[in-house]
């Protein structure tokens, strides 16, 4: 516009700015403006710029007079470097530029618009300068506010977004677009990068209700608070949505929270509360609360054991049986003092006037400062249990006494758990002190005689299988080595499925009975044996006695004498069964039977114990010798008999050696045949006693000697057939 002005005219124009319409307009501009051109010398660029024109506003801004004709370097040397590059660039590009600059001499902020001017081959720059310091400051403040708002936005835990509701052609809201969202948005929704996208593009199956609600707010401008579930997102939301903007349709700010977990907890809590309530209603116990002092009680539910009681009451005074009040009070006071729980069994007054038993428990409820605010508890009626327990104690006592007096061992075996209970007597029968061990099937099996185990186990298995009574008599080895016989009877108990669960039984000690039975059996056998044996012997003795006697009377005398001698031995033996016979005693008795005077005989010898068998033979031998002597020898006359014996060792075995020596003036007869007595000494002693015997008839009388080994003393049962 000014490019075509000539230098002189430029000068004129600068001197007379009002001369032209353009000049007037230039000066009238509210913004500061100037036109500058490059200063060239001889066609070379000097880097200097000259003002072609400056308007009034510029002169006012810079505080100078008209600048036309003056150079930038001379007036504002610091500006050359600040602007030269910009001027050149704008000229080179040929398009205007808007620059924002701070004042070099002040804090002011200026908007500078540089426009290239071309006119008649000349190039110039028009600079328009506007002080925008106030605007700039305001924008700067706004930016800071925005920044702070954004930080706050991202700092909150709740999700926050600003949406624009999208309406369909028919005016109904059907979707919404996210304009802004904070960082927590993703966490609460699971939706990523929402900015600029619509809800349906992020979650195509989102329920219509959401767009409808936000649409309503966008149109009405009224904020809403609600809680709602989105099945599509699988979340529960607690939402506060409010309108943003000046007019409908408003933008909508949505502040929300995913409350899925809280909802789940609420649901669980409700279930739990319902269950608790059901429990309280269903329980046979009385549920109650008490004041912190434990004096006043209020029934909360459950069984109205105490009758129809409403409100709080002094329960100890009203319901506890007088005899138990002091004890109950003590327990309550102790629990309060110790901050512990209460647990007590006590008698109470039942609504029907009877005395019953209660089992009461209560726990303290504390506040933050550990102060008891109340007690919560329950009471159970245990009257029948107490009764049953008492009967059980009586029953158990009776059983214990009965089993101890009757010497009965009892057991109770829990087949499923293996637990085994023994009565005291059972322990003793097994050779244990009562309670010495924890009884198990193994403890029992250990003491069972090894030969019996298989049979006993088979009997137990059979009883378990068939349900029939278990009956078994078996031996037990006690630790001292004693073997006892036990007779067991028991029975299995079964559950509904027929599975054996328990076995109960009793044991008695049959050792003594069996011993007696055995003894009796042996005695009978022995008696039978002896009688038969004796008859056999009598028969043999009778036959063997016969040849030595010519007269029947004599024969009978002899036979009777021998049978009597045998009878004496038998009576000695049965009188002291199981004992040996003393030789001296035997000899003296035999002499006594034959009425031998003490002055006619000499009996001497050490103490010797004879077995019953040897005693029988020695008795008969002495009898024969004495009979013979009375009839023919020393005893029939003025003779004298020495009977002496001694003990000696032969090859380490004890022997007894007995000598019968008669001294008589003259013999009446001279027997040469081998008589009964002689045979006895010479043959029977070697045969039966494995000894030796000699019989000699001298002029002065008989000399009989026999010796034999002493075997162990036999018993009544030491038999010979």
């Amino acid at each position, binding site marked *: 516009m000014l490019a075509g002005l000539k230098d002189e005219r430029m000068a004129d124009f600068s001197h007379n700015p009002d001369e032209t319409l353009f000049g007037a307009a230039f000066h009238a501009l509210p913004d500061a403006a100037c036109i500058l051109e490059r200063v060239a010398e001889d066609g070379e660029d000097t880097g200097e710029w000259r003002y072609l024109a400056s308007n009034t506003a510029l002169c006012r801004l810079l505080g100078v007079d008209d600048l036309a004709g003056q150079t930038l370097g001379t007036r504002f040397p610091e500006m050359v470097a600040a602007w030269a590059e910009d001027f050149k660039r704008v000229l080179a590009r040929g398009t205007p530029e808007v620059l924002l600059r701070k004042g070099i001499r002040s804090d002011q902020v200026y908007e500078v618009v540089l426009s290239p001017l071309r006119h008649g081959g000349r190039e110039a720059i028009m600079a328009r300068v506007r002080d925008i310091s106030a605007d700039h400051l305001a924008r700067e403040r706004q930016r800071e506010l925005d920044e702070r708002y954004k930080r706050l936005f991202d700092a909150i835990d709740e999700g926050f977004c600003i949406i624009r509701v999208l309406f369909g052609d028919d005016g109904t809201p059907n979707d919404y677009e996210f304009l802004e969202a904070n960082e927590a948005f993703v966490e609460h929704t699971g939706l990523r990068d929402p900015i600029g996208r619509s809800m349906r593009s992020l979650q195509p199956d989102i329920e219509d209700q959401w767009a409808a609600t936000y649409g309503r707010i966008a149109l009405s401008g009224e904020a809403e608070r609600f809680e709602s579930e989105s099945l599509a997102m699988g979340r529960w939301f607690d939402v506060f949505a409010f309108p943003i903007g000046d007019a409908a349709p408003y933008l909508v700010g949505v502040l929300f929270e995913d409350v899925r977990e809280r909802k789940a907890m609420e649901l669980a809590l409700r279930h739990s509360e319902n269950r608790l309530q059901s429990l309280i209603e269903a329980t046979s116990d009385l549920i109650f609360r008490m004041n912190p002092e434990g004096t006043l009680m209020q029934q909360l539910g459950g069984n109205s054991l105490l009758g129809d009681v409403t409100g709080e009451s002094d329960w100890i005074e009203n319901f506890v049986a007088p005899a138990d009040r002091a004890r109950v009070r003590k327990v309550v006071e102790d629990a309060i003092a110790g901050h512990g729980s209460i647990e007590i069994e006590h008698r109470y007054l039942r609504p029907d006037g009877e005395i019953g038993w209660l089992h009461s428990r209560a726990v303290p409820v504390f506040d933050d400062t550990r102060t008891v605010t109340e007690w919560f508890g329950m009471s159970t009626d245990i009257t029948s249990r107490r009764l049953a327990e008492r009967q059980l104690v009586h029953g158990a006592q009776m059983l214990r006494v009965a089993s101890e007096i009757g010497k009965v061992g009892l057991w109770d075996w829990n087949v499923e758990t293996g637990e085994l209970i023994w009565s005291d007597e059972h322990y003793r029968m097994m050779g244990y002190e009562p309670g010495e061990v924890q009884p198990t099937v193994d403890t029992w099996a250990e003491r069972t005689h090894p030969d019996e185990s298989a049979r006993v186990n088979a009997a137990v298995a059979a009883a378990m299988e068939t349900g029939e009574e278990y009956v078994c008599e078996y031996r037990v080895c006690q630790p001292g080595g004693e073997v006892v016989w036990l007779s067991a009877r028991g029975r299995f108990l079964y559950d509904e499925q027929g599975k054996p669960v328990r076995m109960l039984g009793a044991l008695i000690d049959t050792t003594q009975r069996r011993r007696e039975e055995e003894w009796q059996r042996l005695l009978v056998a022995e008696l039978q044996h002896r009688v*038969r044996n004796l008859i*056999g012997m009598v028969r043999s*003795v009778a036959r063997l006695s016969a040849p030595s006697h010519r007269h029947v009377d004599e024969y009978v005398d002899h036979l009777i004498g021998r049978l009597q001698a045998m009878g004496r031995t038998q009576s000695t033996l049965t009188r002291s069964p199981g004992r040996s016979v003393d030789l001296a005693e035997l000899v003296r008795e035999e002499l006594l039977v034959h009425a031998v005077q003490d002055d006619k005989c000499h009996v001497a010898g050490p103490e010797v114990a004879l077995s019953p068998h040897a005693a029988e033979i020695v008795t008969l031998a002495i009898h024969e010798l004495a009979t013979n002597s009375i009839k023919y020898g020393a005893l029939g006359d003025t003779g004298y008999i020495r009977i002496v014996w001694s003990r000696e060792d032969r090859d380490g075995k004890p022997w007894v050696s007995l000598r019968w020596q008669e001294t008589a003036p003259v013999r009446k007869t001279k027997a040469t045949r081998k008589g009964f007595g002689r045979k006895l000494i010479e043959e029977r002693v070697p045969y*039966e006693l494995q000894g030796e015997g000699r019989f000699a008839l001298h002029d002065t009388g008989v000399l009989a000697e026999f010796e034999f080994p002493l075997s162990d003393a036999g018993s009544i049962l030491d038999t010979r*057939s």
Partner: protein
Amino acid sequence: MTQRPLSGLSIVIVEDDYYQAQDCRLILEEAGAQVVSVSAKLPDLDRLLAEGRVDLMLIDINLGHGLSIDFARNLKARGIRFAFLTGYDAEMLPDDLAGSPYLSKPVDGARIVAALADLGGGAL
């Protein structure tokens, strides 16, 4: 005794009672038997057989200090015929010997002879 039913038979007596052993010997000898041994204790069988033929044995079951059951089993195993003589009941015999000839005391001579004659009848 006119009859001699045990003629030619060699018999061993094991009986611990002297009188009964002698009695048996007399009875068997009268019946024609040759009694080769009378003893109160179990004899050494091998030596007995080495000394001569043994056709039959009459054995007391209880020999005072022991039973003759094992001895009888040995006889049975070696095919030597025998008869038991005892004051006890036959019930006390073990099962494997329960079928053996058996004479219960007191027994008269005729029965002993008859029993041994039965056994001897099957002899060679």
